[in-house]
């Protein structure tokens, strides 16, 4: 692993959930632009494999690989301390962390429902609270967090996962409101179905997009300081329609 000097003066970015398909693509994008990265995720071995891969592909400067488990809230403060030890100048954070189980299984097994909510919502709130405090003090930076188009409307086929993402949408909206005066960008990335390990084997996913498309869109949106991004773009239009379907009709639909 390289040391963090002699590379560039671009600010470091923290990637949470670094082994996920979208995060890997985003890391490639950020590394190509010369940003040093801190990779964090549940399985350190996998994170290190990802780090080596990024270094080979882009000459990336990976400052550290850290273990991060969304479910273990009690460790998040220590994690944050470690992050800031490696990168006191941290200026950005990309979060693509989450689980999705089969809806039917979630309905019959509460432990899966609980894990969905704990990981996708509580875990994120726990770490984002800490990050928000850091950026608020710095008075600059960005938090870009991947949620899902599934969070816009609850559908019978996926509402456990969808509601965890909907909660995130509201949380990020509030955080954005709070950090606006501190000039911190809080970005909600509403991702459509993406061809990643998470969606393998799922049938009938419309407009399945490669993670590289999302990564490019997200990077562009960060530069443009967009609050809410639908990616791929088509979902902006689809959700415009879906969000306007009146509830009396929506509840009758098989979605």
């Amino acid at each position, binding site marked *: 692993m390289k040391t963090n000097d002699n590379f560039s003066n671009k600010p470091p970015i923290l990637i949470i959930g670094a082994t996920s398909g979208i995060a890997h693509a985003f890391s490639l994008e950020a590394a190509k632009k010369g940003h040093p990265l801190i990779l964090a995720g549940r399985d350190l071995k*996998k994170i290190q*494999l990802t780090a*080596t*891969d990024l270094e*080979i*592909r882009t000459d990336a400067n990976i400052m550290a690989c850290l273990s991060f488990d969304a479910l273990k809230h009690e460790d998040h403060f220590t994690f944050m301390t470690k992050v800031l030890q490696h990168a006191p100048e941290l200026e950005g954070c990309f979060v693509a962390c989450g689980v999705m189980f089969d809806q039917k299984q979630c309905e019959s097994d509460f432990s899966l429902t609980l894990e969905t909510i704990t990981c996708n919502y509580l875990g994120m709130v726990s770490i984002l609270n800490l990050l928000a405090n850091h950026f608020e003090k710095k008075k600059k930076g960005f938090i870009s967090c991947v949620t899902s188009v599934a969070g816009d409307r609850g559908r019978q086929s996926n509402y456990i996962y969808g509601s965890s993402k909907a909660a995130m949408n509201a949380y990020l909206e509030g955080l954005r409101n709070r950090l606006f005066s501190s000039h911190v960008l809080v970005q909600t990335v509403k991702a459509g179905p993406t061809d990643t*390990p998470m969606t393998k*084997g799922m049938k009938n996913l419309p407009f399945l997009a490669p993670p590289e498309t999302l990564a490019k869109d997200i990077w562009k949106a960060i530069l443009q300081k967009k609050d809410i991004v639908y990616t791929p773009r088509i979902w902006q239009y689809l959700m415009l329609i879906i969000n306007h379907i009146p509830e009396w009709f929506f509840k009758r639909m098989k979605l």
Partner: protein
Amino acid sequence: MKIYEQSLSGWGRYPVLNCKTTDVFYPLNDITSFHEQHSFTLRGLGRSYGDASLGTDNSLVIQTQGLNKMLSFDKKSGVISALAGVTLEEIIETVVPHGWFLPVCPGTRFVTLGGAVASNIHGKNHHHTGAINRFVQELEIITEKGPCICSPSKNTDLLNATCGGLGQTGFIQSVTLNLKKIETAYIKARLIKVKNFEEAIHVSKDLDSQYEHAVAWLDGIAKGSHMGRGILMLGNHAELCNLPDSKKKHPLKNEWKRIWTLPPVFPEWLLNSTHVGLFNSAYYHKMIGNEQNHLLNFETWFFPLDILSNWNRLYGKKGFIQYQFVIPAENAEKGIKQVLECLAKNKLPYFLAVLKRVREDNVSLPFAVPGFTLALDISLKYSHVFNVLNELDSLVLDNGGRLYLTKDARLSPATFRKMVPEYESWVHVVRKYNPNKKFASLLSKRLEM
């Protein structure tokens, strides 16, 4: 681990089969504890044409696209190591800016490293360089007995049986490859018009020793005195001094062209002899004069078909077969003539024909023998295709030739064994490492391996 049903086919879209499928994203330690399955079939990007990556009734298809991490790259010595799901496109993107290139390039960059090794891919430089096995420095293979490292100095029998072994020797987990040094990302190409395939063979024999890359495109539709006319394409990697000043600043620059996609349902009647005949004629006559020299970007040279991401849809729902055979040099002219005459007699058109000289493959289950290979794209919409192809098999066999299994979907086990006498010694090595036939595919079942 998610296991799900998926409808799969090779690139030729024949046969199509519902397979039990799963994906791997990170290295495995052991395959047998991976899942209690009768057997495993390995699949990368599904770019083999026939049934090599399709499962059988009781096998689990392991898709390796997610196994896409690079492990090391030595920019000084040009050695790259990566997990099997990394694609050739990703390797090219990574190594070209540092002055390295794939030592062997097939006609598409959308294949995985594991698939490339299992098919022992060859390219336009086979006559000069051979197939990819000559550049494999090390493989990590998970056999029934566990992980096994093989290289030219260690477990050589496994290495030689795996390159071109169509996934029968085990799960190729990682590949270490020696790269080729380049000065520029360009190819200095020389194009020569040939009147027929005999002339293509003669000119090729005369000239291709001076070129690393050589291949002939033949017009499959032209009749009468134009039958088998085509363009012989010869090329070498350009050196820095070959570039115009405008390109000298960034000699290793590469930007992929935009890729186009065909709609999911492409009417198969659109691809007919008239349209292809017009296209071929235009392609042939576009080249003015008998000879031209060009400086081409490597993408244009190696991957012309990749700009249409799913050109296999052109052949419609029924799909197509790419019939690729090799005939030893001494019989090449006679054998190829017999094959083309047989196709003409049976009125079976082939839309694309590619001819090139090849050298020997030094692997246990070789495709190439020193001679000429011809690849013909044949649509399956004609009802008599399979009968005619059986006839071709016997012509190829009579001339001492054989077929490329990566593109095959219908060869019979008896003919296969006659074509490939090396089969017995190859299968002996396969069983040495996999006594319980844990690795199988529709192809291995069909050929009764």
